[in-house]
């Protein structure tokens, strides 16, 4: 099996439904198609150049940002505004088809994840896979997330940065 699409932590495999492997190009198409996307930035990329790259992608595609863990602080210090939620809180809201979204404009239709702790992110993605048929999930971490709808493959930093840069273009 292609090592790039064995989930980064192999034991998170949950069943027959696996994420689609995406390239930056497919990810771009998903972003283009989305009407109300949302980006969730977790604390794993606090104080990493990747955080700036992620916010560039959000800016490029005009996506509101939710920060989880304590990611709000480092984003705020970098002058990036985000709304802070616990990762379980935001997932809980996203699974409710009647929730109006972070900007009160309606439930989101695409949720882009980056920087959430792998195994916890995997659990949240599982919630959305099962209980949020109204939206799609895309993960931009350097780890393959089988519980997402679409995920980047397992990559080394160098390739990952290239992937992210393409999305920010």
């Amino acid at each position: 099996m292609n090592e790039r699409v064995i989930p980064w932590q192999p034991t998170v495999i949950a069943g027959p439904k696996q994420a689609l492997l995406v390239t930056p190009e497919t990810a771009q198409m998903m972003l283009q198609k989305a009407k109300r996307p949302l980006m969730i930035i977790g604390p794993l990329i606090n104080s990493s150049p990747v955080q700036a790259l992620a916010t560039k992608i959000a800016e490029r595609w005009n996506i509101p940002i939710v920060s989880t863990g304590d990611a709000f602080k480092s984003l705020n210090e970098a002058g990036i505004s985000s709304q802070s939620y616990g990762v379980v809180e935001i997932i809980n809201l996203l699974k409710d088809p009647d929730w109006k979204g972070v900007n009160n404009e309606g439930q989101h239709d695409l949720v882009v994840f980056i920087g959430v702790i792998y195994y916890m992110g995997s659990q949240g993605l599982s919630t959305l896979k099962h209980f949020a048929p109204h939206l799609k999930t895309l993960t931009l971490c350097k780890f393959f997330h089988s519980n997402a709808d679409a995920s980047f493959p397992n990559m080394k930093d160098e390739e990952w940065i290239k992937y992210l840069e393409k999305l920010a273009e």
Partner: protein
Amino acid sequence: MVITVAHRPKPKEFKDDFWKSKNINISIGDIVETEQREEAPESMGPTPKPNVTDLRSWDMKLLKRYEPFYAPFCDMCCLCTYGKCDLTGGKKGACGIDIEAQQARTVLLACCIGAAAHSAHARHLLEYLIEKKGADFPLDLGMDIDIEAPIIRTVIGKVPKALGDLREAMDYMEEQNLHLLSSCHTGQEGSSVDFESKAFQAGLMDNLGMEIGDIAQIVALNLPKGDPDAPLVELGMGSIDRDKPVVLCIGHNVSPGAGIIDYLEDQDLEDDVEVCGICCAALDITRYNKNAKVVGPISKQLKFVRSGVADVIVVDEQCVRTDILEEAKKNKAAVIATTDKICLGFPDMTEEDSDKIVKQLVNDEVEGVLILDPDKVGEIATRVAMQIAKDREALKLLPDLDEIQEMAKECTECGWCQRVCPNSQPMMDAVIGAAEGDFSEFQRLYENDVCYTCGRCEQECERDLPLMSMLTKVGEHYVKDERYNIRAGRGPVQDVEIRRVGAPLVLGEIPGVVAFVGCTNYPEGGEDVAKMAEEFLERNYIVIASGCGAMTIGEYRDEEGRTLYERYSGDFDAKGLVNVGSCVSNSHIAGACIKIANIFAKKPLEGNFEEIADYILNRVGACGVAWGAYSQKAAAIATGVNRWGIPVVLGPHGSKYRRLFLGRTDKQETWDLNDLRTGKVIEGEPAPEHLLYAAENREEATVIIAKLCLRPSDTSKGRQIKLNHYIDLHKKYFGTLPEDVYKFVRVEKDIPITHKKEVMDMLEEKGWEPRALPQEPSTMNFREKAEGK
């Protein structure tokens, strides 16, 4: 007057009710006369010995406000031969179950297992102690504790007076657990919320079982009885004297450890042999005898066994590595299994001649032995340790540093050790560093149990590198001074302490009780727990600790070299750090909250679960933190305390329990309160906002813990104090005023003076209006009242 009988040969089974109604207790043995034991309560509430469905209406109130949030860990079900069934995309299993109910069923199963583990442990202890001390041995917790069994009183509706009385609660609990387990069978319950209600019942049974177990061992083994000045005892891998024969107890049941200590005392060998423990067995043997030592929490297990320091390993029950024999063989340590829970394939030598058992173990004629008599374990473990210790000294137990460096050069950098690490720790980087003679990453993994030595990486390594031995050696070499002090588990909270803090807690002037419990599945090591404990101690909260959490807190020192146990008193009071004891001592945490309702608010306990839980939910600002929870027991404890109205914060691994209970602040109607004083329904607030929450890191957890201590009963003075901490902590970890603080301001007087201006600005921006403070906030029955019934 009642005739009771010291419990010698096996009692004859009599139909419970008949003998109970006659107040007679008969078994075959010596007849002794005692005063009437069980006290009839003055008033009995509506639900003594509640059956599975009797507290369902309370559960539904909780579940409406704190809806279950499911994160399936597995998309399939493989429980019966119709399966595997694929439950994705809204598909149901062949039996009709859907993914939500399947998650809830799994949670119920975990809670039943947890409750069974605690209660089987309690049953074993109870019968063993009754055999030793007699069924009429009094449940006397000393002068300062009159309400000695708050959970039993509330749930069973009776006040137990002697060891034998605990059997009634035990029987009830066992029957309930059977019904609950039954509903996990294919083709039973189909509703996720009803599964959750059953999980609450299983959690409650767990809490009951823990209380039975701990009270029985406290009174019969004379463990500290709520003593805030319980002695400091030694903790840490470095505290064990390697020059002596070492007996290590792993698990949770105190009896074999107590047997060892008794034997050493009888033979005058206390100074000649080290007795130490890992996990709760360690905490309980140090409650029994302060000279015993605590190696540390469960995360030390593989490291310490690999270090080869233990000559004899005595395992009892729960949280013991199931490959302990294989590990022990690596350094020729002897293994003794001591309970029916863990037999390891060993021959049962309980009835065998002691000399013969010792000989067989010393000469390696058996792999290990099963001995079901704790006193005999005491003798055998000691004698074997004393005989084999000398020979084992010559064994080379761990590789040297230069050998480690050579081994590390074998690494192919395949990366699989990191990928299979459940905690995503960079083991490969540690190995690559070691190959260059740089052991710093190994050292980082070793310290604070950042790596909790689960051993998954080692199994995966394609070069068969002994990663755990390498880690252990680096730790031994570089990490000095692994010697700390921990206050021995004190058991329950005294009534007089409850009288002292009841009012300030309910009014909010003591900002909360924060209890650090559970195991060591920490995302970034144990220091996070100690730092959280320190943060709340400094802020005047009452901090409770138990189990592995209590040990972890003890492994952290300030700059002056003092642990938190040396810096803070053991009082149940503001700035007190209360180590209640082992896993089963967790019962005293819910117990303290129940006692506040009873002693301070005069709520009758017997058969009165819902009123007590309602009181705790709305008026006792307590919050549990299970930062490294991994076990089914932890699932059961948390679910049980949730039903009592106590919120719990889990670490990120807690998301793998599959289910949380989350409130929705945007659904205002779910927060309405009934003011019992006026009978009116009033607009409430999200306090506490969640019942079971998983945080991603310590920073997030610290802030949410402070928030989850808010209660509708806070006076304005109390609310100011609590909001002050919430705002302060939010500023510290998030850099700003919390976005939602306006939701917790009822009147202007609630605003902390130091943050007045910015909070006022926020209130104005939000169009805030003052609202009434409830006088006696309650969640009970308000819907009926609202409908004018």
